[in-house]
């Protein structure tokens, strides 16, 4: 107690200068211990998955465990791609991963583009203009976010089956578009609201049409918002499992991995390789476009 009192400088402002004060050391210790715990919490499951992907099954049961494989291998990736010569995990499920990755990519991009086009127009309309029903229409869009997609799947399942769209990418593009549209409008509107309408008004006076203003002036200024929204929608489509599982037979990555996960013939190591492959795109996007993604998330939640 007394020593702590002695260390404390007389004025609050001077405390920071004494970098090696006991308080400062304590602060550093607390921070770095917390940082280590935080890093372990985040990294361990991922580390385990990545190491499993390059380990041989025999090595997985070693006790104490090998934190880094002694004899790393690419066999698991070969098995996933269906190019393994010995075909250790031979199954007709092999080699479907590339197809599923491509479909996930195509579906994600399509849903993002549709959202930016149709959602962007609506968001601009709600942001800039007051018209009969503008308030109730917008409140309705907000309220529709509350409907859980998982609760209303039956009508979609029946409708897609009747129209023969079941097990096609259209079924997923269509339903993902519907469920992300209110979110995109909400997000994009908050970005449009932040732009001053003065430039648009000046362009109006100069005789530019409203659509031209939207395309030439507003879209470039709102680019960060468009990028953030597009990325969030893409990640959402990439992640979706419930609809993909019910409406298609393992068209996209998540239901394919779920089927690997339930197959006894698939070792965890092969599944880990497939998991790593399908985690790389969303993790890369989130890390590289961190600024946009975080901006989008906090606009969605806080703006």
């Amino acid at each position, binding site marked *: 107690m007394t020593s702590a009192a002695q260390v404390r400088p007389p004025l609050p402002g001077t405390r920071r200068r004494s970098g090696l004060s006991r308080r400062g050391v304590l602060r550093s210790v607390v*921070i770095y211990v*917390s940082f280590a715990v*935080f890093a372990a919490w985040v*990294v*361990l*499951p*991922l580390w*385990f*998955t990545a190491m*499993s992907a390059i380990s041989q099954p025999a090595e*997985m*049961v070693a*006790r104490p*465990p090998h934190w880094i494989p002694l004899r790393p291998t690419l066999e698991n990736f070969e098995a996933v791609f269906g190019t393994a010569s010995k075909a250790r995990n031979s199954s007709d499920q092999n080699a479907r991963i590339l197809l599923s990755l491509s479909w996930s990519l195509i579906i994600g991009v399509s849903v993002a583009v549709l959202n930016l086009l149709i*959602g962007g*127009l*609506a968001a*601009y*309309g*709600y942001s800039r*203009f007051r*018209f*009969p*029903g503008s308030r109730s*229409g917008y409140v309705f*869009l*907000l309220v529709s*976010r509350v409907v*859980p997609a*998982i*609760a*209303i799947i*039956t*009508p979609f399942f029946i409708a897609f089956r009747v129209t023969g769209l079941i097990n096609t990418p259209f079924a997923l593009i269509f339903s993902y578009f*519907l469920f992300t549209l209110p979110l995109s409008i909400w997000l994009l509107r908050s970005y449009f609201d932040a732009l001053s309408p003065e430039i648009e008004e000046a362009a109006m*006076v100069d005789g530019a*049409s*409203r*659509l031209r203003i939207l395309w030439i002036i507003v879209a470039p200024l709102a680019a960060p918002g468009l990028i953030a929204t597009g990325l969030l929608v893409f*990640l*959402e489509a990439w*992640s979706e*499992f*419930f609809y993909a599982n019910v409406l298609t037979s393992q068209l996209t990555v*998540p239901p394919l991995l*779920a089927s690997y*996960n339930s197959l006894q013939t698939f070792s*965890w190591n092969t*599944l880990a390789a497939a998991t790593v492959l399908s*985690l790389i795109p*969303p*993790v890369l996007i*989130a*890390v590289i476009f961190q600024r946009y993604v*975080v901006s*989008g998330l*906090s606009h*969605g*939640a*806080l703006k």
Partner: protein
Amino acid sequence: MSSDASLDGTASETPKQRSVRSGHSKLAAADRRFGLLLAIPATFIVLLLVGGPSLQTIVYSFEKVSFIGPTPFVGLDNYVRLLNSDEFKDSFRITTVYAAGFVLISTSLGLAFALLLNERFRGRGIARTLLIIPWAAPWLMVGIMWKWFIDADVGMFNGLLYQFGLIHDYVPFLANPSGALIVTIVAAAWRQASLSGLLFLAALQTIPPDLPEAATVDGASTLQRFRYVTLPWMRPVLMVVLVTNVIFGFLQFDVIYAMTQGGPGNSTTLLSILLYRQIFQFSNVGIGSAIAVVLGLVAFTVGLVFVKFLYRSESVYGRAVE
């Protein structure tokens, strides 16, 4: 694309001429029309295709439906059968426990992470990048990773405990009912703590720096600063994060599907799993839809709190994204 295309049908007139001729009222009318034209497609798409299926699901919940044949109206029969079934009551209880644990862990960890990453220290940039990674992982992959991470044969978590001498033999956590519930909660919270942390951190960064400084000059301790400066500032965000987490907790499906499929026994059979089984394994669309309505009502009630809050607060707060 023709650059002068105008949707309001008055392309021959420039807005300038129009405002000169008839003043603002005509311009305002054109604005109204343009705004309406922009908003109509998206709004009607959602109205018809989210509103329609929602109503249809409610209708199904009053019918005896399988995927083939007629669908006779049975009134409240499906709901009565649900309320009399132990499976549903158990599932409702399990879902509530699941959601409560999920909310508690992901919110408090998220807040702790955000407070840590708001401090200045070497490595903070890396730490902030780490924070976003669990959020980027799809729910299903989170379930798969955790299922094997805590596995009793190959799992690294058991290896960790073993190496530190905490256990002498690997523990099959998922084989035990309460163990399975806890582990599936922790796995899902692994991702959600990251989203909560990102949102909390964004809010912490908007605190004007002179606010805590003034409190320090006034002699406030670290704890007092947290209690009287940080916490009040964070209250709106906390509200948003809590509501988001409650909804995510009640609707969780993917993580359970990947880890336990509802087992062992029915110990992790959340309402979402029950719904999936009733509709797609037993073709009991009526019963499944009644469960869907219950889930929807829970989400709606929680969401309503949020919308009310949204319109009461000065600034606008929205529901976070997934």
